């Protein structure tokens, strides 16, 4: 009980800090604008003539690639730069509670941005009869993807006191997670490596799992994949925080 109370205290603090600064609003507005732009202008939402959100969700791995590290880069880097990490970690709150609390705060901001795209969902339902089961799967996959990038950002943010460095590192790691399973890259790899190896690499890519969720199958394996990525990077965050304490 105390544990959840502590996590929630940390999350609330992080949210209040973020809400009083423009970071959260800028993130939400840019996310909505870019979503609309990619979906309707580039994704050919209307030209497809299908009542589906495939063109909407299809861009999310690339949108999140920059937006999630941008919103999360301050998570630990700012604590270190301003010295408040010394306050936070000497409160009777464990490092785990602090890590999860912060992660949760930024996940809430991302979830709010995602929920605010509901007009797109209303639009497809108005124009046609989409499979709303696929759309729910789409939203779930999108949130899992964003949460994975956020865990990566948490890790890179703990590595440094410089937010820009943390941003760049996060983008690079997330890009790797995308490219390992992106068809153009896989085709390129096909010329050099054996198919078995390529399947192995592709299994580590968020794209492989994101795409299969987008097709409407909420396979447990895909969900477990995303949860493992999230847990792995949160563990890595914990390890970095402890190691940097040791001096």
């Amino acid at each position, binding site marked *: 009980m*105390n544990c959840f109370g502590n996590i929630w205290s940390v999350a*609330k603090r992080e949210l*209040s800090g973020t809400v009083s600064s423009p970071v959260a609003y800028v993130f939400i507005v840019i996310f909505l604008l870019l979503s609309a732009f990619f979906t309707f202008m580039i994704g050919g939402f209307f030209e497809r003539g299908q009542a589906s959100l495939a063109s909407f969700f299809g861009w999310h791995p690339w949108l999140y690639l920059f937006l999630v590290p941008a919103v999360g880069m301050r998570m630990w880097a700012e604590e270190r730069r301003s*010295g408040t990490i010394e306050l936070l970690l000497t409160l*009777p709150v*464990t490092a785990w509670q602090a890590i999860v609390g912060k992660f949760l705060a930024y996940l809430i901001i991302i979830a709010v941005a995602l929920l605010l795209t509901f007009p797109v969902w209303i639009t497809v339902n108005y124009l046609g009869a989409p499979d709303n089961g696929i759309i729910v799967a789409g939203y779930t996959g999108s949130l899992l993807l964003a949460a994975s990038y956020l865990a990566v950002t948490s890790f890179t943010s703990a590595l440094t006191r410089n937010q820009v460095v943390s941003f760049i590192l996060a983008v690079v790691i997330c890009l790797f997670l995308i490219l390992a399973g992106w068809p153009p890259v896989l085709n390129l790899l096909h010329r050099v490596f054996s198919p078995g190896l390529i399947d192995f690499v592709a299994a580590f890519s968020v794209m492989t799992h994101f795409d299969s969720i987008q097709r409407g199958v909420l396979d447990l394996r895909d969900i477990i994949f995303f949860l493992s990525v999230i847990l792995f990077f949160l563990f890595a965050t914990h390890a970095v925080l402890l190691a940097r304490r040791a001096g």
Partner: protein
Amino acid sequence: MIKVEDLRKNFGTKAAVDGVSFNVEKGEILGFLGPNGAGKSTTMRILTGFLPPTSGSAEVDGFDLEDQPVEAKRLIGYLPENAPCYDDMFVSGFLKFCGEARGLRGGKLNDAVGRAIATCFLEPVAHQSIDTLSKGYRHRTCLAQAILHDPPVLVLDEPTDGLDPNQKHEVRSLIRRMGKDKAIIFSTHILEEVEAVCTRAIIIDRGRIVANGTPDELKGRASGAGTIVLRAADRGGAALRPFLEKVEGCSAVEVLEEQPAVLRLRPKDASTASGLAARVHELAVREKWKLIELRIEEGRLDDVFRSITLPDTAPGRDAK
């Protein structure tokens, strides 16, 4: 309450804290003195659970900071060096967060925040954003966070650093007041502060304790402590000297100034200084000297500090 045993902390190959042991009981205010880079902050960071020690242990009320960190941290209020605060919060919001993280809720939380705001004179800025505060208010906001939950143990790293003289005075009287029923340890390099506030002082240099005692005991270790200084208006120093050398219990007389005469008498034994002073006074009355001053030197903490800690430029001290 606080028990530190043979604490060591290495950064790379360098020992920042090198075998420090001490205890602080309830009702004690321990002053932690030492030049910059002596290891004061590092010791405090270990004591508050922010850094793990390389070896040795720190305990608060029987809870080891490594084995039961959460239980120990509950009992501690900590003001880190440079008073870090969340710039993006309001003063009252910041204190509320700290209270919540310490398990206070509802009415108890509001009472605690209100009390801390009043104690640290933060009323005028309670609803102001922390990044707009002056340094003094910022410092006191962080101090308020430390005393919010009325902890039995307070660890204050340079609590008066960067404050103006009035604020320094306020913070010192606050520490003295709270010291009655808490165990307090605070670091400083201002020596008057130690005399004004502490019940005991530790001087630390290059990671080691070099002196430990009450401020008076430490002052007694100064080179001039226990000597008698005499000033007379109507005689020359050289004229007085032969008289004084004959006084019982006096081992040496030194003329500091000739006109008006100022002389320093060294007693054979520091504990007999007051007897010697009385005899000097009798002599002066008998000889009708116009005495303007007769006092026993207390010894200055400054002198002790300088004589037992190496100056920054001395060999063996590496630059910070």
